[in-house]
């Protein structure tokens, strides 16, 4: 993954400016920044959902937006929204996405089990708690065994047990290249190789995690 001077606007307002970074395959980038700093914008851009307005963006070795079609099926995107239909059950939602991604139906049961939702998998999503929905959203994001995981605050609403349970799917040992946003200085740095600090749409710091301390992260939020 490679960004050179990447930028994105919404109307007149810049949401992301001049981001340059490189992430090797299999590594993890953690993104810190206050609300509105541009973290979600960065992730949506990498997910091919937003086209970059400036600079160059390469994902899984392919230039965006031109080669978006080639990388789409290899990206797992966990966004703020669960991307699940509320009137369908978790299982029905996952079956739907499995068909779109041409994944075998057996995989649906496997990921449901892995996120601990086998028991409530047949309830409509509308009737589930926030944490349960987040578990299903994680199941959806990893359903097609993506090479690149884009995780927007992946542990939001999860209890500690659930967080531990989903770690093999979306954690450092998942084997995928990962970009993770976080508001938790200590937890966020764990298992990450590179840390990016965003503030008001600009890069505040970009360094290996070993060189980043709580002080620098705290500075972002001041």
């Amino acid at each position, binding site marked *: 993954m490679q960004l050179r001077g990447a930028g994105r606007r919404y109307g007149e307002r810049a949401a992301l400016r001049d981001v340059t970074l490189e992430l090797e395959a299999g590594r993890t980038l953690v993104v810190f920044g206050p609300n509105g700093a541009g973290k979600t914008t960065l992730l949506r851009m990498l*997910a*091919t*959902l*937003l*086209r970059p307005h400036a600079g160059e963006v390469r994902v899984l070795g392919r230039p965006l937006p031109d080669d978006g*079609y080639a990388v*789409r*099926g290899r*990206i797992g*995107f966990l*966004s703020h*929204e*669960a*991307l*699940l*239909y*509320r*009137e*369908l059950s978790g299982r*029905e939602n996952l079956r*739907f*996405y499995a*068909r*779109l*991604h041409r994944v075998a139906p057996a995989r649906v049961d496997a990921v449901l089990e892995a996120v601990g939702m086998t028991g409530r998998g047949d309830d*409509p999503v509308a009737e589930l708690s926030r944490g349960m929905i987040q578990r299903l959203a994680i199941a*959806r994001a990893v359903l097609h065994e993506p090479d690149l995981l884009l995780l927007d605050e992946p542990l939001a609403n999860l209890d500690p047990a659930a967080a531990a349970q989903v770690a093999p799917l979306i954690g450092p040992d998942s084997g995928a290249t990962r970009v993770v946003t976080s508001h938790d200085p200590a937890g966020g740095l764990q298992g990450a190789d590179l840390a990016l600090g965003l503030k008001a749409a600009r890069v505040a710091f970009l360094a290996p995690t070993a060189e980043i301390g709580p002080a620098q992260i705290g500075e972002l939020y001041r």
Partner: protein
Amino acid sequence: MRSTVATLLAKELTLEWRTRESVPAMVLFSIATYVVFHFGLDRDRVTGDLASGVLVVTLLFAAILGINRLFVAEHEQGGFDGFLLAPVDRTAMLVAKAVALFCFLCIVEVFALPAFALLLLGPPLTQALPALVLVLLLANAGIAVIGTLVAGLAIQTRARDLIVPLLALPLLVPVVLAAARSATPLLQDGGAGALPGNWMAMLAIYDLLFALIAFAVFDFLLED
């Protein structure tokens, strides 16, 4: 592409079956409108061009309700993002939505036509029915394609409820015109006349034209 369309369409029909959001509203709207015409026109039998006009225009207004709701679940529940992240042909969503809307309109007419015959129509419906069904199927196809295109455009904007009728009604004037003219001889007093071939041809050509336009531009509607 075929299997993607099938997957999307199955999801579409399941959601409508669960929520019953569009079809019942469209059915109730059209029946209520025929009741209003029944009293508003102060007649219990209309024929010919008046009958076909009332029939078709009411169905068009009912369709607007369904068009308005066509992409709401995708927009509000993240279906667009989920779909855009999948390695599939994006035109599949256009086809699936248009086919779903087409099915909804057909179901609505199963209820609306008897109500129309009961409340307003002078001559008996039975004789004209096969030809009338043909006219309505062609009209439904046009409404489905144009409606999907307009709905896809409007969902990106804030004033969806305003944009949909404002765009769809003018674009659908030729469909209404051709469908109403085609149906007129069918609903005449003293037995159904022959289908006017030129109006039917115009309806079919307009449907085809917009199907091609929709194919060409729908990708751009979904793109950021």
